């Protein structure tokens, strides 16, 4: 039985700020989205954490279509280019597109395209959120189901859980909360509010949320707003993923959890793995702070002897990537093996510790930012030499001509929607290069950070 096949009951499935929905009522909502067609189609969801969006998602999966989930906040230019490339047959969201007509709650493509979609394909997710490209991760029905089951097992999610969904459903971590809690027949508290808002905490209190999830920035916010001193007797589980949380904060929250009789899970994953790959069992988080823990049930972690790269094996490893419509026809190209791009070591208990990254990307607010892509995009917009570096706190953009600072800032803020505290433009006399002419990123990073 898959998590998206709803078993009708009087149990509470979803709670929004306005209303509660039993599994029976959720099922009725799901039925309102009729994605009926003889062949498999692509459904695009412009996501907000709303009951309608969740229902459309479940209906599309129940009808065995492929679903692409994108944040409703994605900039219009990127949205249009994605629609032009992938030609979804149905779109759910408030933005209206040319070439579509409104049929009830859904926009339907006027001229149907007959591009075949692979029978196993379930979900298409971007790895870089609203800042992204047209590249998507292809996840199969088996991928998401097996990951949901593994998460239920190691987090020990039962039907009494009431998880607050404070991460976007277009984000793999957020989506995994939905999938795993539906799998466990638990309840989901849907909200678009962040931990920085008063309404959020009223919702948590009134609806007695039992778990909360966060990327590293969420934990920085939680610490700043005095979460550790809040009285939250119903909240029993905290989970963290979406990038490395600094060890000091891991220890603070681990200590807090221990004292308050709560569980704190530090986890590791990638959208490419649907997304969860490892976790630290909560009772060992103090002693194992700084590690990514052990593989999830059914998964396997190892280190490539030659390169030191962390390799994951499991049934949750994606089918592959898609960068154009024709890619949706492709089958599994990975055979359950994922090269994570992270280098790692392991300790005497076989807990894994990430030591570095093989590819040029950073993670800001839980989302991956490909430095080469940013460079290319900025160069095409600003028309000057650009070199990017950074760490998981900040994106650093080096230029060699001062007059372009404002222009670079404008593009970064418009296109990547990055807050100004999350990046810095640095003017260097010259961008460091090797004799070959290639940019010397090691020296560049030293000069910028």
């Amino acid at each position: 039985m898959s998590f998206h096949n709803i078993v009708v009951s009087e149990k509470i499935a979803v709670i929004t700020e306005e209303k509660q929905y039993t599994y029976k009522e959720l099922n009725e909502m799901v039925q309102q989205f009729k994605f009926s067609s003889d062949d498999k189609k692509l459904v695009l969801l412009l996501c907000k954490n709303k009951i309608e969006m969740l229902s459309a998602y479940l209906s599309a999966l129940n009808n065995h279509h492929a679903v692409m989930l994108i944040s409703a906040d994605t900039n219009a230019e990127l949205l249009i280019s994605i629609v032009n490339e992938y030609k979804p047959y149905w779109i759910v969201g408030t933005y209206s597109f040319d070439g579509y007509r409104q049929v009830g709650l859904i926009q339907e493509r006027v001229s149907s395209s007959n591009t075949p979609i692979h029978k196993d394909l379930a979900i298409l997710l971007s790895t870089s959120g609203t800042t992204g490209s047209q590249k998507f991760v292809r996840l199969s029905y088996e991928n998401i189901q097996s990951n949901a089951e593994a998460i239920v097992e190691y987090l020990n999610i039962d039907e009494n859980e009431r998880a607050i969904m404070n991460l976007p459903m277009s984000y793999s971590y957020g989506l995994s909360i939905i999938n795993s809690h539906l799998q466990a027949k638990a309840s989901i508290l849907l909200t678009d509010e962040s931990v920085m808002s008063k309404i959020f905490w009223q919702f948590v209190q009134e609806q007695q949320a039992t778990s909360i999830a966060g990327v590293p920035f969420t934990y920085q916010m939680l610490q700043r707003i005095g979460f550790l001193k809040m009285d939250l007797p119903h909240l029993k589980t905290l989970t963290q993923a979406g990038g490395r949380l600094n060890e000091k904060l891991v220890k603070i929250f681990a200590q807090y959890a221990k004292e308050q009789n709560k569980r704190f899970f530090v986890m590791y994953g990638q959208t490419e793995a649907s997304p969860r790959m490892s976790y630290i069992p909560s009772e060992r988080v103090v002693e194992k702070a700084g590690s990514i823990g052990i593989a999830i049930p059914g998964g396997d972690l190892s280190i490539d002897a030659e390169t030191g790269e962390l390799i994951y094996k499991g049934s949750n490893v994606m089918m592959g990537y898609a960068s154009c419509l024709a890619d949706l026809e492709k089958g599994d190209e990975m055979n359950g093996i994922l090269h994570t791009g992270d280098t790692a070591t392991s300790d005497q208990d076989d807990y894994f510790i990430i030591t570095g990254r093989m590819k040029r990307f950073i993670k800001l607010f839980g989302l991956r930012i490909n430095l080469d892509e940013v460079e290319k995009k900025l160069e095409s917009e600003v028309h000057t030499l650009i070199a990017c570096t950074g760490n998981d706190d900040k994106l650093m953009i080096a230029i060699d001509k001062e007059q372009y600072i404002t222009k670079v800032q404008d593009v970064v803020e418009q296109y990547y929607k990055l807050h100004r505290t999350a990046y810095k433009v640095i003017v260097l006399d010259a961008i460091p290069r090797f004799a070959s002419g290639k940019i010397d990123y090691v020296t560049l990073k030293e000069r910028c950070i």
Partner: protein
Amino acid sequence: MNEQKLRTIFAESLGIEESRVTEDLTYNSIPEWDSIAHMALISEIDDQFDTMLDTEDVLEMSTFAKAKEILAKYDVQF
């Protein structure tokens, strides 16, 4: 003077023109004032007014007018 100082902090933390910082400018009502900007705003206020805002005040600071009201409790004169 503090009013202008606070206005500048708002404009810089949210990345908007000072003219857009009106009394009833509200959290989450414009894309620029999201949780990330709010976090930056709070730390900038703490830095520049030498305060350490409480939980309640961080969460309550949902308009520019409200920010002045809250800061008054910390002996910042407007």
